[in-house]
């Protein structure tokens, strides 16, 4: 990118930041109690919240990452898109029940039936914060890598006196500080508006790019696919599954089986993880009632689906128009494919100036995407920390509302700072696997507890706690001892493909994605905890929860005093 293009990206991005900060100040003045801070006053319409949900979900990993995987490995990137979308059907089935039964967090739903609220809430807060921090880390490290790629600062070069290495650190810190600012001052109101603006920008620019790509091929999809396959590294299998996941290894049956299982495991985590992602769940509570919550999920399904269909055009378009060589030279992971495509399309229309303008715009949208997603995550985890851990565990459910909200603002600073430090430390590591890990953890820890507490009459506190900890630590341990952390080397160059450098190898779990083992394990722990624990289930609480989740009677209020009395 030329100097002019870089400056234009910066200007556009600063514009986005300024307008969202203005919204944050407006939101600060209109945020008074817990309902405002955690749930935006429950005043968003179904459509608004749906757009924000889509905004929360479409991370830079899906915008740049999926387009990149399609551009380099072909069809397999599309498998990600499908998993990400089908997952929303499960969310649609849960959304009303959870909206009716909870107030602000997933733990509200879980602790409803619990005899010992504190234990469940602590477990839920730990799981929420862990999942969010892993996801955050992936996004923030990605932001650092993106800026040096986007501004085209290669190692050794400087831009306004900033070297590539310090540009990375600087980006992470700036993104982190702005994200803390949004959450701390604006709470859910500001974060929701940031998501809405970002989602509109992202979908708008994706539509523009898609139309431009298709127009280059006379709106003939088959023609585009043909050109994409030809320009790729491996034309033969480019349009079929198997380029990246579930590879067949000739002569090595064990490795082939492992690859296929790994692929199934990823698919399972993608489809089951979404309904347990904390920043998605906390968005169920920002609308006035369950019907509006359902409407918002329907909106999200429409937007997310349209977006992922368009990533097909972006990925195959980049493969055809930019070519395998140019993409993998800039970034072997392909994360710049969409940006290079934007430059190429703009150049075709208006020379190098046109290329710079379109690239600058898409680059600024990518930054906005990262910023919006990370603030959603920080909000979800600080809500859980303040409402569940501080409010119900430390203060035994009797804090003043202002105290709890004050603590939530403090928690946002705490988690944000922690994430910045971690991301700066990990800035040069390959942490892309953390997104899939966050999905696997959400599916293994949160989903069993949510499902069983809504649908299983016998479920108890012990079961919920065992399910959450079992799923969380199960998936964590499996990943630590998997090839993504140690022991995977490139057979050609001998360089390490894992987190640790080559030579360190302590992996014994063959799969890179833990889901296929950890999700059943999470469910098994929850069931075992219920059946083996001495605790007897409280029937009335189950009935009360059923009535409430189906009808919404008494939603927004804490469980009745009668229920609390029984639980004591």
């Amino acid at each position, binding site marked *: 990118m030329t100097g002019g293009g870089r400056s234009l990206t910066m200007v556009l991005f600063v514009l986005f930041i300024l307008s969202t900060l203005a919204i944050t100040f407006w939101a600060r003045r209109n945020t008074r109690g817990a309902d405002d801070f955690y749930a935006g006053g429950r005043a968003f319409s179904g459509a608004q919240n749906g757009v924000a949900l889509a905004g929360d979900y479409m991370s830079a990993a899906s915008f740049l990452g999926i387009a990149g995987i399609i551009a380099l490995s072909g069809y397999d990137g599309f498998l990600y898109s499908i998993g990400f979308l*089908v997952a929303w*059907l499960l969310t*649609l089935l849960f959304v009303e029940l959870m909206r009716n039964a909870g107030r602000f967090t997933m733990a509200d739903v879980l602790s409803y039936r619990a005899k010992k609220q504190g234990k469940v809430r602590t477990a839920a807060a730990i799981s929420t914060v862990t999942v969010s921090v892993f996801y955050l880390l992936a996004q923030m490290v990605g932001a650092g890598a993106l800026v040096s790629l986007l501004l085209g600062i290669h190692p050794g070069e400087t831009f306004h006196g900033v070297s590539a290495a310090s540009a990375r650190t600087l980006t992470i810190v700036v993104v982190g500080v702005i994200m803390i600012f949004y959450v701390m001052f604006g709470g859910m109101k500001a974060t929701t508006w940031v998501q809405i603006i970002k989602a509109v920008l992202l979908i708008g620019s994706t539509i523009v790019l898609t139309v431009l790509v298709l127009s280059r091929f006379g709106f003939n*999809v*088959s023609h585009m696919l043909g050109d994409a396959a030809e320009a790729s590294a491996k034309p033969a299998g480019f*349009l*079929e*599954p198997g380029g990246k996941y579930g590879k067949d290894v000739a002569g090595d049956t064990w490795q082939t089986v492992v690859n296929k299982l790994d692929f199934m495991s990823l698919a399972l985590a993608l489809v089951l993880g979404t309904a347990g992602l904390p920043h998605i769940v906390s968005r169920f509570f920002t609308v006035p009632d369950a019907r509006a919550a359902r409407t918002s999920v329907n909106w999200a399904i429409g937007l997310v689906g349209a977006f992922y269909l368009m990533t097909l055009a972006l990925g195959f378009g980049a493969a055809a128009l930019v070519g395998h060589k140019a993409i993998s030279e800039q970034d072997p992971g392909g994360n710049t494919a969409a940006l290079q495509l934007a430059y190429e399309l703009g150049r075709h229309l208006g020379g190098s100036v046109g290329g710079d303008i379109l690239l600058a715009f898409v680059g600024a949208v990518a930054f906005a995407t990262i910023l919006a997603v990370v603030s959603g995550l920080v909000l979800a985890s600080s809500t859980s920390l303040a409402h569940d851990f501080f409010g119900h565990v430390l203060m035994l459910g009797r804090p003043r509302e202002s105290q709890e909200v004050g603590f939530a603002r403090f928690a946002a600073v705490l988690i944000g700072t922690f994430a910045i430090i971690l991301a700066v430390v990990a800035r040069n590591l390959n942490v892309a696997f953390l997104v899939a890990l966050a999905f696997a953890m959400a599916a293994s820890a949160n989903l069993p507890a949510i499902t069983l507490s809504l649908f299983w009459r016998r479920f108890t506190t012990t079961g919920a706690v065992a399910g959450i900890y079992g799923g969380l630590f199960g998936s964590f341990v499996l990943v630590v001892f998997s090839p993504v952390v140690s022991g995977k080397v490139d057979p050609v160059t001998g360089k390490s493909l894992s987190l640790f450098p080559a030579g360190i190898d302590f992996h014994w779990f063959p799969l890179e994605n833990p889901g296929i083992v950890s999700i059943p394990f999470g469910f098994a722990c929850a069931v075992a905890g219920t059946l083996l624990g001495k605790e007897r289930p409280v029937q009335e609480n189950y009935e009360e929860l059923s009535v409430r989740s189906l009808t919404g009677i008494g939603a927004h209020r804490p469980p009745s005093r009668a229920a609390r009395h029984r639980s004591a």
Partner: protein
Amino acid sequence: MVAVVAMFLGWYFVYIGLSAFARDFMARPVIGNINVALVFGVLQFVSTFLLAWYYSRYSRTWLDPLSAQLRTEAEWRQAEYERAAAEHRRTQVPGQAQRIARSQGRGERRLDPQWWGEKS
């Protein structure tokens, strides 16, 4: 509900299974460069949209009225209870209502307004 979940998860995993194990089938061309894999992939999108639409229609016509009916019934019962309680307070000696409630203890739980989540 269980049938719906089984259906879309089943269809998703049929697709994933075909992608993993039936690559030759998935590679078969349909029109031009568009092959079975792409068609099935896009069909996943179509089925997701259709199911979401169908589920929403189903809840609008069947579940929403049912839940509204339950809610009105519950609210009516609560209003009735409060009216009776007010009546009771008006006719009884001050303090007696509380004493009676206490003596009846946990047996009265179901009629307790607290059960509907009312703050005292």
